[in-house]
């Protein structure tokens, strides 16, 4: 059953007099029990897209067009009251990025967990019992519920944030860069915790990250975003072993791989386009080594194999691209 379905969603921010088009008609859906990895570099719009689902956009941001259907109901049209009452945290919860200040510094972690349960009048179990259960569930000694956030380490704080996301056992969790900024040892712990929770609760999860290794490790399906557009979508296996969009290929050849020292890493020349007035046609054309005149026409989302989709005119030449993409020389700045 499809839980979430986004069609042609476009989002923009109004900064002073200018309009920044952060997301440009993105469509994807999420099946029950799936982990979807949304990967992309800074400024590609992945967090904005995720925030629009729970309508957490800042005051100067708004969804220009498109629908965000959750179990048949369009969240964009919902009033704030209904969102608070029935959707936020009950249906979809959120794991924040920086563990450092995702928790309110002047309340104990126990109080914040209790508050979350109380707002949604949780009554399946006595609230205190559920708080202890949640903390044990993420590997934190319930005795610590009287501690303040600044008395916990980064890793422990992130576990509390995960416990909070589990509080009402929602069908979907959005995790926005859950491991960024954490030490490598704790990153592994948090990823193991997330996968373990997902597997035995069958939860759908949206994982937002810039690190393709993290996505490769735990995601089922992968969405690659660049300059506000969804440029490639497919299963993890398709995206990593058989990428077709040049940007995905370039990204993969830029990531170091342990033990493969001889392979020189690739640098994608230039910089992402300015999204105040985005270029016409393919937004990667100025940086793509394989771009031709045809690329100035906006490429459609072409499907290469079942469900594996890429926004490029030349998806059929992907094998050639993959071959050439590994040679750093192809990526030399042709300006």
């Amino acid at each position, binding site marked *: 059953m499809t839980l979430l379905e986004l069609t042609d969603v476009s989002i923009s921010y109004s900064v002073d007099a200018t309009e920044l088009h952060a997301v440009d008609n993105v469509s994807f859906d999420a099946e029950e029990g799936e982990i979807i990895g949304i990967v992309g570099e800074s400024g590609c719009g992945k967090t904005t897209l995720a925030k629009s689902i*729970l309508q957490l956009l800042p005051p100067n941001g708004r969804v220009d067009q498109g629908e965000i259907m959750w179990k048949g109901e369009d969240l964009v049209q919902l009033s704030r009251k209904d969102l608070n009452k029935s*959707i936020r945290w*009950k249906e979809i919860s959120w794991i924040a990025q920086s563990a450092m*200040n995702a928790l309110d*510094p002047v309340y104990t972690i126990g109080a914040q967990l209790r*508050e979350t349960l109380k707002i949604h009048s949780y009554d399946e179990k006595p609230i205190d019992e559920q708080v202890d259960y949640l903390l044990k569930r993420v590997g934190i000694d319930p005795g610590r519920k009287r501690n303040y956030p600044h008395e916990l380490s980064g890793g422990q704080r992130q576990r509390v944030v995960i416990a909070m996301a589990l509080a009402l056992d929602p069908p979907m969790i959005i995790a926005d860069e859950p491991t960024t900024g954490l030490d490598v040892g704790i990153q592994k712990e948090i990823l193991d915790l997330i996968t373990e929770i997902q597997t035995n609760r069958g939860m759908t999860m949206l994982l937002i990250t810039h690190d393709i290794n993290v996505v490769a490790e735990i995601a089922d399906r992968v969405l690659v975003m660049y300059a506000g557009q969804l440029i490639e979508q497919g299963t993890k296996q398709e995206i990593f072993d058989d990428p077709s969009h040049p940007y995905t290929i370039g990204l993969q050849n830029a990531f170091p791989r342990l033990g493969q020292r001889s392979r020189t890493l690739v640098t994608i020349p230039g910089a992402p386009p300015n999204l105040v007035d985005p270029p016409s046609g393919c937004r990667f054309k100025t940086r793509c080594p394989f771009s031709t005149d045809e690329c100035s026409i906006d490429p459609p989302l072409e499907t290469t194999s079942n469900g594996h989709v890429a926004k490029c005119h030349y998806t059929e030449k992907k094998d050639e691209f993959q071959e050439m993409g590994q040679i750093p020389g192809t990526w030399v700045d042709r300006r």
Partner: protein
Amino acid sequence: MNQKTVYLLKRVGLTIFSLYAIVTVIFFLFRLVPGDPTTAILNPRMTEETRQIILETYGLTKPLHEQYVIFIGNLLTFNLGVSYMNGQLVSTLLFEKTLNTMALVMFALILAFLLGPLIGAYIAWYRGSKVDSIAIAILLTLRGAPVFWTGMLGIMLFSFTLGWLPPGGLRSAGFIGTQADKFLSLDFLYHLVLPLSVTTAYFLSMPAFVMRNSMIDVLNEEFIELCRARGMSNNRILYLHAARNSLLPVLHYSAVVIGFGFGGSVVIEVVFSWPGLGLLMFDAVMQNDYPVAQASFVMLATIILALNLLADSLSSFVDPRAVVEGVG
């Protein structure tokens, strides 16, 4: 000893040290005045009998360091000498006047620190809107206008033109009543209304602005977004989370407001002829009554330091992180 008590002990130690330093400064100030120190103390108009008391209590003829020891001894035993003006014991004078000042300035400070943050939180939520700009204009004007001038305008309007309120003083002439009655009687409230509202209006804007600014910073924090994601209503976010986090800067800033408050009490009490410490000090300075001037100055400084200490210890309860930041 957990960290919080240690933090408080350090703050108490520092406050006592500051007070000691101020007292020493005052001592030297009064002694090292240009010209012969004794003439500065022995005011010519004085009766012979008060002169003897002063010579004996201060031991002015002794060398400086001995005078200093006597001076500190006197201070600690509340033996503050005798007023030139009316020969009364300074300590009794001081006690009574301090109560009057506290009744006015302390009351105004409490009101300001209750109303101010509420107003600040409200306009922070509606920043950038019309409400915000009007409120800022009013607050700035209240803060900008010299408090004695607003006092004068208040007297002109409410006493002389409308005749509703008395132009000054603590109670009507001929009022008799016990010590407690003094502060609880209707007559006292009748006299208190105008000075209190003027003083509160003057103090109000500082906590209001600090609250507004720190609220705006806090509302941009990550955990506020997580509160919204958890489905909290605006009011719950505003008052339970944003406001609570903004109290620390307000308390930290209180040291400035308290200093201003008691410093300003001089002009406030002069305008409303309110018989408090400020007026006492003013009269003492006018008539070169050094013991009274010296004692009231030290008393004011003590009150300010004590209140700063109170604000500091409060801040460690309001915000658990305050202790971690340590002293200084």
